[in-house]
């Protein structure tokens, strides 16, 4: 059975170009970059190139890039650094739809004497900017707001927000850009963003590597201590091959960004349009005017997401759901709940996330099979029978 992989916001396939540059680092270039011999020096060179490549994708300077083990570590490092740098400021601002890497960490800080503001969103997932700005004061240590939402693809105007919150007294602005990097044009040189997190495996590098951008001049304090690596900003021997891979993935992302925003977007739009046309009682979630080009969050009323996913899996289709049942937690996704998506539909929400690997044929397979799957499940659902009876 052919695999139709439409779950790229969860993780991506490692690109061939990336793997090619990575393999020599595992086989031959095995030195520790810190070592004082030629094998150490040999390993140092590709690291330097990787740092330049990541910086270049972000419009940053190489020494503003810190390599980490994942997006989550980048997020934790950023928040922790702000707390240590501004110990008297006891207020943190983030959003209700943030990834748990930021949201859960911030909420846990309430135990440590911090006041945490979670900014709400509207039905389309757009941030309540008035509430955001009203919450900022001189007591605000950090404002952390994602660039793009992982479930709906909704983009937040983080550049504008960064300028505004800093003028209102917030010490640090951080953005979790894990889903945005490689899909959205980013130029940090011209922005007020102090820190930005990214993750390798969301842009065709392997799992286990990420980066944190730290604007020159930003007060910083390391999260991992006990070594001089990364200019003393992150102890621990570098995950060399993966960092090299991340570098290549970033230069590749720069090359592919146009395709992502044209061909991939067209595939996504066609998928969405056909599903809306052929399946009754469904709708697309998020801010349709400001959205990642690859993401489609679509809700099917009166059916449950896990059942849809497992039936799609029978056709080789891989996607994910905002449904509770897939994740082990029982409530539907906090993002959909924050947006006020009614329960009739929140449980039956599917996220398709595409990449440049996808083809027309992939989309055709979904369009051919999903209407039948939804129909089958609705025939089983007592609520569908009720809804149809009420309509008639």
């Amino acid at each position, binding site marked *: 059975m052919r695999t139709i992989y439409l779950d790229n916001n969860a993780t991506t396939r490692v690109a061939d170009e990336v793997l090619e540059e990575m393999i020599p680092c595992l086989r031959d270039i095995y030195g520790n970059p810190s070592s004082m011999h030629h094998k150490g020096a040999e390993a140092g060179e590709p690291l330097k190139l990787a740092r330049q490549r990541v910086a270049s994708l972000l419009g940053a300077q190489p020494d503003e890039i810190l390599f980490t083990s994942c997006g989550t570590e980048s997020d934790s490092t950023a928040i922790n650094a702000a707390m240590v740098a501004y110990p008297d400021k006891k207020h943190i601002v983030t959003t209700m739809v943030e990834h748990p890497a930021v949201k859960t960490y911030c909420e846990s800080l309430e135990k*440590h004497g911090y006041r945490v503001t979670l900014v709400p969103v509207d039905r389309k997932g757009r941030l309540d900017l008035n509430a955001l700005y009203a919450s900022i004061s001189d007591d605000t240590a950090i404002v952390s707001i994602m660039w793009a939402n992982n479930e709906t693809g909704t983009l937040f105007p983080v550049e504008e927000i960064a300028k505004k919150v800093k003028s209102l007294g917030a010490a640090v602005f951080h953005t979790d850009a894990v889903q945005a990097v490689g899909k959205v044009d980013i130029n940090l040189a011209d922005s007020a963003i102090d820190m930005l997190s990214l993750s390798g495996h969301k842009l065709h590098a392997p799992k286990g590597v990420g980066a944190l951008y730290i604007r020159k001049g930003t007060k910083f304090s390391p999260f991992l201590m006990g070594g001089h690596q990364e200019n003393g900003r992150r102890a621990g021997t570098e995950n060399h091959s993966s960092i090299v891979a991340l570098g290549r993935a970033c230069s590749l992302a720069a090359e592919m960004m146009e395709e992502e925003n044209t061909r991939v977007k067209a595939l996504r739009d066609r998928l969405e349009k056909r599903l809306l046309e052929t399946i009754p009682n469904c709708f697309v979630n998020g801010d349709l005017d400001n959205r990642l080009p690859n993401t489609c969050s679509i809700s099917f009323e009166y059916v449950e997401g*896990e059942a849809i996913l*497992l039936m799609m899996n029978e056709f080789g289709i891989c996607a994910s759901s905002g*449904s509770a049942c897939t994740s082990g937690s029982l*409530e539907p996704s906090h993002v959909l709940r924050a947006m006020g998506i009614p329960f009739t539909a929140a*449980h039956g929400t599917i996220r398709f996330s595409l990449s440049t690997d996808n083809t027309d044929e992939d989309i055709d397979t979904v369009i051919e099979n999903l209407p039948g799957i939804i129909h089958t499940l609705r025939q*089983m*659902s007592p609520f*569908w029978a009720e809804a149809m009876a009420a309509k008639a």
Partner: protein
Amino acid sequence: MWDYTEKVRDHFLNPRNVGVAENANGVGEVGSLSCGDALKLTIRVGENDIIEDAKFQTFGCASAIASSSALTEMVKGLALDEAAKITNDDIAEFLGGLPKEKIHCSVMGRDGLERAIADYRGEVIKVTQGNVVCECFGVTDLEIERAVKEDGLATIDQIINHLKAGGGCGKCHDDIEAIIHRVRGEQAMEIIKPVRMSNMQKIKLIESTLEREIKPTLQKDRGDIELVDVVGNKVYVRLQGSCASCSKSQITLKNHVEAKLRELVTQDLVVEEVK
């Protein structure tokens, strides 16, 4: 990906007895849209109280659909009294087992059956009244009590997997724990704060407060704390585990440890860390 058995997969992909039983004379409905799963079971009971037909309509995940399908297969042809004995474990067993997070799907099957039988017998369906404890899933104290009593549940996790109660925002965990303690005859321990304390009483109270109130929260984050000495109102402690290396340990020490000790022992305490 859930570890579903072949039998669960089979009953999910090829569900048996979908629909409404013809001339049904017993209906059982459980669950709701907001909960994420719901079952409408219809049965037709014929001569000698034999269940001639059983059909289901289910909204829910793969294991909810499979549990419903399994249930209809199990009860068809059974005498009503026999059917009434079916437990959620029987349903899970029929399917070769369910992941523990999915036990509530089999509970839904049992509840649906119970209601369908009550409906047929003309009994007033035992709508479990009581006060809602878990607001996310609308589960009442009486339902939790029943699960603790009849199904022998003893922990929050078991309650979540069984009834879903507590599986959402988590705000009701204290209330659920209180019910478990009450039903199981365990008294929640109370900390009694004496008015005037001898030095010995004070040290003991500091010790017990650390044990009951402070250690559990630190241990949740893989940390720990040890009481080293008490001199006058100075409490010397050693932070251990992840707390020892945590960059926020001073915040924890003042905002959590000291605050709690001041609240529960005496206002004058000062906590200091010994490395």
